[in-house]
């Protein structure tokens, strides 16, 4: 038996790449080793890509391949290097969508080759079709998610019987997919093309009614779906690296999606089919709320914080929108120098996706060991003198504990209302992303500091420094 050295080399490198991917992901689970993790995975990717040029199944089109890689590299590299950290979620969405689209194109090529005499077993064809559906949905859905987060699509499209309509489209897609498998080599190009077009349409229809607040869960779901699509196409091509990397991402992505949905107290089905999060911030009426909004000046707020023992800062997405994270970090340093213990409390859904706020604070230079998540810090609010809420809203709304009729009832919240004093920096009186009235703002020990986040943070900093 002769050994095919070419195949052996390709397979060995794929094997090595699979190990590097898993170890890289493992290292990404701790902030100390995370940087190394992505580099390991990157090395695996480069090795796997290079060795693929020697792949025995590649017979031609090397020139096209090189050009396509160039076209794919330059603009994405350029954007990835320059995009603002606040826009990270939509960048992840779009790059993820591209992966899903790529999986779908593999399925398209393989299914079309079946019609020209390159037969595939029925099981393999079925996997190709399933991967095609999942990848296509992930592709077009991610583009919609990107457009929504980027503000290109502002409305949520909701019409009567939408879910029944969407279900119908999905059933047609599945039927066409089954038809493609059954027909095998004799399937016409029209059927294959309609199958793909409708799968793409379904991805769009499915994502359109989902509101901006729920997008992180959806992006995470699409990430897992792309992983699965890649794994399925890996089966089709008999490529173990794709199967392993795709499946690992599919499983990890599913877990991440669950964690996120749980943090928002939503079931995945609820996110996908309820259309909640569609309401954009209406003006608050304050109906049925006891107490009143009590404004405070920056000077007084600064004094409260400067003479506090412990201050907990609760940043929300509004902080990032106002680009206030650098000023807040300076304020933190100024307070720390005065002997105030300052901590950051981050709700799992602060920012546009779990962990996004940590990235934004890290960008401003805030070390991660003074940042705590909800479980770590919630007990501490009672011993905290000042809780400073900046740009956050729903995640500190005590109604989540008390009112079963509220859409956010049951969502874990940061107990800012239990601090001795709470200061809320807020631009205006409107409600937040979800349009729900916030009872914290009306509490006796809450003071409202109205103004732009960055400007107010700067004023607080100045006042705190002037105290000497």
């Amino acid at each position, binding site marked *: 038996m002769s050994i095919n050295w070419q195949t052996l080399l390709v397979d060995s490198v794929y094997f090595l790449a699979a190990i590097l991917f898993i170890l890289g992901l493992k290292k990404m689970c701790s902030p100390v080793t995370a940087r190394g993790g992505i580099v390991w995975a990157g090395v695996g990717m480069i090795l796997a890509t290079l060795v693929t*040029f020697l792949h025995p199944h590649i017979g031609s089109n090397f020139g096209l391949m090189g050009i396509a*890689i160039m076209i794919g590299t330059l603009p994405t590299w350029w954007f*990835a290097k320059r995009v603002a950290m606040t826009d990270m979620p939509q960048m992840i969405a779009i790059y993820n969508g591209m992966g899903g689209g790529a999986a779908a*194109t593999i399925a398209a090529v393989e299914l079309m080759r079946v019609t020209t005499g390159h037969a595939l077993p029925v099981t393999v064809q079925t996997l190709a079709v399933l991967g095609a559906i999942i990848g296509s949905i992930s592709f077009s859905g991610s583009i919609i998610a990107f457009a929504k987060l980027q503000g290109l699509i502002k409305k949520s499209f909701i019409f009567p019987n939408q879910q029944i309509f969407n279900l119908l489209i999905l059933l047609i897609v599945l039927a066409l997919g089954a038809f493609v498998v059954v027909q095998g080599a004799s399937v016409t190009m029209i059927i294959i093309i309609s199958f793909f077009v409708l799968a793409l349409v379904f991805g769009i229809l499915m994502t359109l009614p989902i509101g901006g607040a729920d997008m992180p869960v959806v992006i995470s779901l699409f990430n897992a779906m792309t992983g699965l699509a890649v794994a399925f196409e890996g089966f089709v091509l008999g490529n173990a690296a794709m199967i392993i990397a795709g499946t690992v991402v599919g499983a990890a992505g599913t877990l991440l999606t669950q964690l996120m949905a749980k943090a928002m107290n939503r079931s995945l089905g609820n996110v996908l089919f309820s259309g909640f999060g569609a309401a954009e911030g209406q003006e608050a009426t304050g109906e049925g709320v006891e107490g009143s909004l009590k404004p405070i000046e920056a000077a007084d707020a600064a004094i409260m914080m400067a003479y506090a023992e412990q201050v907990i800062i609760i940043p929300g997405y509004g902080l990032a929108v106002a680009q206030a994270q650098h000023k807040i970090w300076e304020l933190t340093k100024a307070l720390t120098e005065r002997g105030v213990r300052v901590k950051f409390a981050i709700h799992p859904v602060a920012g546009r996706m779990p*962990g996004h706020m940590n990235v934004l604070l890290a960008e401003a230079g805030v070390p991660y060991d003074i940042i705590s998540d909800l479980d770590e810090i919630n007990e501490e609010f009672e011993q905290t003198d000042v809780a400073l809420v900046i740009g956050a809203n729903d995640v500190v709304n005590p109604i989540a504990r008390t009112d079963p009729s509220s859409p956010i009832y049951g969502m874990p919240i940061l107990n800012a209302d239990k601090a001795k004093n709470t200061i809320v920096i807020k631009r205006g009186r409107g409600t937040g992303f979800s349009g729900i009235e916030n009872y914290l703002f009306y509490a006796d020990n809450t003071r409202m500091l109205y103004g732009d986040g960055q400007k107010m943070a700067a004023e607080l900093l100045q006042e705190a420094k002037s105290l000497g």
Partner: protein
Amino acid sequence: MIEGFAGFTALYIFMLAGFTGYEVIARVPVILHTPLMSGSNFVHGIVLVGAMVALGHADTNLEKVIGFIGVILATGNAVGGYFVTERMLEMFKTSKKGEAK
């Protein structure tokens, strides 16, 4: 290589990789969720090797066009995913060596 995998071997790979993915992520702190999602997004950029194979054995012009688009998309996934993740992870540091405390 298609003939290299008997059905059940592939199924076993699928199952074990699934558990691996779940376990590897299980204890990740919330602060790393976004970079990790981005990192796992990069890892499925391995679809590039599949896209290259698909383009590499595409015969008709339509197949070539689709394969060509596939390689562009897959490259975008891998390249974009890498640099975005790296940029995020680069910023994480502790106060022990930083200027705070």
